[in-house]
């Protein structure tokens, strides 16, 4: 029944996320015809932009990418919308938990702790439930793309959808794990959220700055599966590193809960 | 039938219970051979510890006032020993009534009389009763 309880505690976050991402996926697909109409304009921009500056080159690249459907989906949907919104929900689902329940009244923390279930099991069920929901949150909207593309006369590879979904999940789990760990430290809901959010923003800015120097690394890069998109294979190193970090953070969270006094 | 014992009176509850049962037998509310309430229902009705009820019943059995029949419950003893207890109680009641009358005649209030009895019963009357008391 711990699974059911975890579901009850996270279902609104999950359902809202699922709704949002599904709508965004539909939006991406049905936006494309409009984008196509603007292509002639894009071509104009292409010839007028000064490509001697870094930024100029990037803007030109972006415009070029969106000429193809696959490129458009990757640039607009995967890289920006899906990664961005999903990460927000990864952080949201990582918050909450026993410590938060012990702070505010009605959380039932002492009740949970009085049941014949070890703390490791309680926190483990919570983590697995949330991760399961996060997996669904990325796979379902991703599959909507190949499903709906025929409606606008395009096609999108299911394999591509899955691969990008998995990259987001495996790499982005680190954000979930960080929020999860912080929620075993702070008793309010806001601090884990804000701190993880702040770190995510900092990493994004850092990644952007490094990109301008032509240094291609960063967690969001791994999440968006850029190397796969560009045909140079999956970002194995990044995925492994992120998975290792997630495991370490979750382990630390379990140890925190085990030795916590309530 | 049995009233709620007073938990704060300083007299152990099981003693109060025993007194009530004996009183019921004397007044005829409980007759020899009649069954007493079971431990659980009585504890629940009076909202007291079932161990306390059990203790009272055990002590009453020890004094021969009731019989505990295994599996059947507690019954008022029909034996002569029980009758002897009742007779002793009757004699005691007469003696107490006479003493109280005497003390009242000497001008002691009921409250004072009660305190005297309680102090005596507390068992520590070692001090010499020399003058200086409120005579």
């Amino acid at each position, binding site marked *: *029944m711990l699974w059911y309880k975890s579901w009850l505690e996270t279902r609104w976050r999950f359902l809202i996320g699922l709704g949002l991402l599904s709508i965004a996926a539909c939006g991406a697909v049905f936006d494309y015809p409009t984008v196509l109409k603007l292509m002639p304009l894009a071509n104009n921009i292409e010839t007028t932009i000064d490509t001697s500056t870094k930024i100029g080159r990037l803007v030109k690249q972006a415009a070029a990418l969106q000429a193809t459907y696959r490129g458009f989906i990757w640039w607009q949907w995967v890289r920006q919308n899906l990664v961005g919104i999903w990460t927000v929900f990864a952080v949201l689902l990582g918050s909450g938990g026993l410590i938060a329940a012990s702070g505010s009244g009605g959380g039932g923390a*002492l009740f949970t702790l009085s049941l*014949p279930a070890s703390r490791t099991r309680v926190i483990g069920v919570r983590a697995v439930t949330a991760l399961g929901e996060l997996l669904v949150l990325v796979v379902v909207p991703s599959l909507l793309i190949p499903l709906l593309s025929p409606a606008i006369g395009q096609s999108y590879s299911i394999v591509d959808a899955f691969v990008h979904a998995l990259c987001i999940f495996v790499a982005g789990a680190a954000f979930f794990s960080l929020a999860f760990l912080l929620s075993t430290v702070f008793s309010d809901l806001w601090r884990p959220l804000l701190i993880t959010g702040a770190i995510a923003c900092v990493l994004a800015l850092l990644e952007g700055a490094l990109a301008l120097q032509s240094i291609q690394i960063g967690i969001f890069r791994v999440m968006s599966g850029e190397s796969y998109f560009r045909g140079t294979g999956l970002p194995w190193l990044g995925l492994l590193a992120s998975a290792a970090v997630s495991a370490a953070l979750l382990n630390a969270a379990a140890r925190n809960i085990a030795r916590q006094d309530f | 039938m049995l009233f709620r014992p007073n938990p704060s*009176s300083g007299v152990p509850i099981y003693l109060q219970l025993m007194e009530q049962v004996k009183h019921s037998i004397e007044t005829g509310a409980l007759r020899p051979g009649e069954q007493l309430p079971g431990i659980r229902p009585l504890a629940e009705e009076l909202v007291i*510890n079932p161990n306390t009820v059990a203790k009272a019943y055990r002590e009453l059995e020890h004094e021969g006032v009731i019989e505990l029949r295994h599996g059947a419950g507690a019954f008022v003893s029909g034996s002569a020993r029980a009758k002897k207890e009742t007779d002793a109680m009757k004699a005691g009641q007469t003696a107490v009534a006479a003493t109280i009358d005497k003390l009242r005649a000497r001008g002691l209030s009921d409250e004072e009389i009660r305190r005297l009895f309680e*102090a005596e019963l507390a068992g520590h009357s070692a001090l010499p009763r020399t003058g200086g*008391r409120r005579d």
Partner: protein
Amino acid sequence: MTDRADGARRADALVIEAADLHKHYGSVQALRGLSLQVPPGSIHGFLGKNGAGKTTTIKVLLGMARPTSGRARVFGLPADAQESSVEIRRRTGFVSDDKDLYDYMTVAEIIRFTAAFFPQWRADLERTYARTFELPLDRKIRALSRGTRTKLALLLVLCRRAELLILDEPTSGLDPAVTEEVLQTLVGHVASEEMTVFFSSHQISEVDQIADRVTIIDRGRAVVSGSLDDLREQYRRVQLIFDGDAPDATFRAPGVVRVRRSGRILTVLSSAGAERILDEARALNPVSSDVVPVTLKEIFLESVAAED
């Protein structure tokens, strides 16, 4: 019902045993060497002022907090080891003083949730109590009154065939009718099952009423402990009245809890009967003496004030 004298001899079968427990939270010393023995089958009252350490003790017993030092065992199992703590909780029912439950669940949901943890769940008792307590099955817990929450919390612990109930201030905030209902349910349940009840309380009257053993805790230490009947028989207040001002006497007899002088009256509170006090008092030549039994309330008030 076994003879309570057996309980003392079966010391190795204590349901709860704590020895010299210390617990501090930062600079706050919550427990300073608390020792506790709860024999099986007893209804054990745990009295103490706010902040005396009642809730901390309970949390240590249930593995919610780890003691700084000392030993606590429930059913003979160490309370601070994770696996044995789970086993302890399998056989124990706990109700916190806040009656902390999942506000977002309905009554029916939390009953199903709890029942899933206990394969021996008593569905018959569940139906009985849900009916007699008049629990609204479809209402969310956050919408329940305090009395109803308490009754629900009670149902959740009574149906699990627990050998031990640990209740932290079970009747706090309840009106007299609900209080009586709660006490009556506890007493009835104890009478029909083999179980021990350990409950902390502010209400001395209810400890008086249903407990057969009591421990008084003050500033993290047990100051009085024993069977209620023994305490009622052993505690006495001896009042000595003198012709002139009462002398400033000290008594060598054991068990003197407090000596008070007021004008011509010397009052001695003894935890070991009045005989020895009266013997020593003879030398002081009082005019008269009075020996009076002491209520649990007075024992409590004097014991928590007597510490320096």
